[in-house]
């Protein structure tokens, strides 16, 4: 596997090097040349409201380096973190090479690829995996992980076709089991969790995506399809012990990633004062926890649909947006531990004050099945260009559900960010 990985790495590197010296027709006299470096330094501290413990204490240096030479751009985004007083190993959040022609772009390397039109949801946004080690608390920019991929965009007028090949599997990072963000597990006993089995490296285990997009008068639309790995592992029961009358007394599970296909769409349109949005996807297979007595593996595979409808509105400097999101399990079985329908609302309100130097934002998820919520208010003050001082909260409401399970994790944070 390592030999194949090395071979593919070399092939991609050779491809990048071969593209670099190509001449272009699209280059203009205005094309910038040379290296640019920008980024930001940020310090951020957060405390849990229930016990005063620090749950965020980090200093970040985020560098964005760009080198342009003719039709090619090289981009690298190294990030240095110091968390809780410990300097973390440097992270290359993104590093890729772009080649631009008049009709197409080619990007090779580690990159974030963002699809879809929904806010705060990942319905067709399935290529870049996520870092959920702190649930949905960090900014979305930091939740998304880059994947090593080859991306090809072909343009014709206002239409484009995007093809993506992801040869390396990159999993979503789940919270550590000892973390305050570890999700509740739907088994009646605390299971022993084996290390996850990751896909072997070969062509058959690559991910493939395609998207057609149109942006134009009155509406924008995109149609997508993909053959992919479910980035968050499903737990497969590999051993269990029933001891009457206590019932289940021992359980060992194996986290497994699995492949599936997805087809979906995303659309937005202007309708008078409103911006209407919708996004949906059909997932060929999803694994859901099920009654162990009926499903010995602990899960059942079902097709599923997820979609959203939403609207944005602006008035008197206030921007508001609302989305309704529904997950539907098809071919539902009553042995499943999840509801057939799962409904969520998102609400966002933002407004700027004092000539855009103060911005107030409010983002919330509301779970309609468990009547729980995550509310994220934030205020940012920009006393000088490039300098931001900010404070915000994470408030979890409810006792159970995706958000209510973290009701002990309500937090307050503040920080400063200097962009350069």
């Amino acid at each position, binding site marked *: 596997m390592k030999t194949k990985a090395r071979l593919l790495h070399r092939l991609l590197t050779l491809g990048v090097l071969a593209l670099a010296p190509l001449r272009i027709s699209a280059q203009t006299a205005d094309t910038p040349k040379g290296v640019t470096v920008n980024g930001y330094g940020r310090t951020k501290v957060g405390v849990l409201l229930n016990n005063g413990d620090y749950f965020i204490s980090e200093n970040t240096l985020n560098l964005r380096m760009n080198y342009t030479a003719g039709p090619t751009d090289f981009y690298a985004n190294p990030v240095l973190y110091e968390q809780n007083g410990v300097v973390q190993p440097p992270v290359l959040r993104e590093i890729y090479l772009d080649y631009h022609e008049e009709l197409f772009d080619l990007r090779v390397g580690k990159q974030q690829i963002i699809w879809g039109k929904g806010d705060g949801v990942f319905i067709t946004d399935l290529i870049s995996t996520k870092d959920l080690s702190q649930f949905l608390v960090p900014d979305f920019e930091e939740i998304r992980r880059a994947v090593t991929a080859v991306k090809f965009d072909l343009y014709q007028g206002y239409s484009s076709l995007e093809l993506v090949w992801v040869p390396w599997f990159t999993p979503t990072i789940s919270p550590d089991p000892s973390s305050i963000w570890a999700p509740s597990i739907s088994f009646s006993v605390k299971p022993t969790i084996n290390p996850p089995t990751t896909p072997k490296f070969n062509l058959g285990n690559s991910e493939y995506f395609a998207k057609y997009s149109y942006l134009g*008068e009155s509406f924008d639309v995109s149609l997508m399809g993909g053959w992919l790995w479910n980035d968050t592992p499903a737990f497969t029961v590999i051993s269990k012990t029933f001891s009457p009358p206590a019932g289940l007394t021992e359980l060992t599970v194996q986290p497994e990633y699995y492949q599936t296909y997805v087809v979906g769409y995303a659309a937005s349109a202007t309708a008078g*004062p409103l*911006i209407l*949005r919708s996004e949906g996807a059909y997932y060929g297979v999803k694994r859901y926890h099920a009654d162990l007595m009926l499903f010995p593996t602990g899960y059942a595979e079902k097709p599923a649909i997820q979609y959203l409808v939403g609207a944005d*509105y602006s008035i008197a400097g206030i921007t508001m947006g609302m989305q309704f999101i529904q997950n539907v399990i098809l071919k539902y079985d009553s042995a499943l531990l999840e509801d057939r329908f799962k409904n969520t609302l998102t609400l966002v309100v933002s407004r700027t004050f004092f000539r855009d130097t103060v911005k107030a934002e409010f983002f919330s998820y509301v779970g309609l099945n468990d009547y729980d919520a995550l509310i994220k208010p934030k205020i940012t003050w920009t006393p000088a*260009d490039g300098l931001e001082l900010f404070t915000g909260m994470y408030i979890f409401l409810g006792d159970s559900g995706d958000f209510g399970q973290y009701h002990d994790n309500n937090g307050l944070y503040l920080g400063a960010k200097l962009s350069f």
Partner: protein
Amino acid sequence: MNRLKRIGVLISSILLLGTPLVFADPSGAEIMQAVYDRPQGQDMSGTLVMTLTDARGGTRVRDIKQILGRFGSVDKKLMVFQSPADVRGTAFMNWSYKEEGKSDEQWIYLPALKRVKRISSEGRGDYFMGSDFTYDDLGNRHPSEDNHRLIRSETVNGEDCWVVESVPKDPKYMYSKTITWVSKQKMVGVRREYYDQKGKHLKDLTIERVEQISGFWIITKTEMKNVQKNTKTVMEFSNVRIDTGLREDLFSERTLTRGL
């Protein structure tokens, strides 16, 4: 001579002869229509530096690259912020339709989110990037949205001007009226006063520089002063290039994400 012909002659006189008009004053509506129809080329590109000054004299500078094109009945504009650092790479695209009653369409690209988002264009009265210009001040307001009246003629900085009062037909519009000084020779507004909904003097727009570029009169420096808040914004255009043949498909998602 009907009114349309008079406007045609008026524009032709300016373009071909570059001399002041010699016949009777046109109406306020004809003047504002002629300003609206003033030839400005099919496309334009350049750099915009916006300097915001607050009431205490503190300044902030925004540096923007922009392109603009006219394609049939649609005006398309794309702006990419170069500075300050916290908004670098943010891009904004507007498609404005000449068709009466049809709303503009707008998109924004935020580099942190790596996504192009269609946004509402209804906030025409909102201030653009914290400046003293509203989105509507920056747009090409159609003369049919106001009732115009020629008040008088007078000289401003050596320019012989018509003074036109414009009262919006929509009583809920953010301004109760505007008064515009229009250069008779260049057919360009050189000064404008804005009055708030209570009829109080709110803002002064001064055209500080008009240049002839590629045969067109182009406003390259303006100042908007809010006389109630004592703030001002200066917009200065440089590297202006006209009619370079910008393709319509340049005003696209691809350019929003890649920048100019």
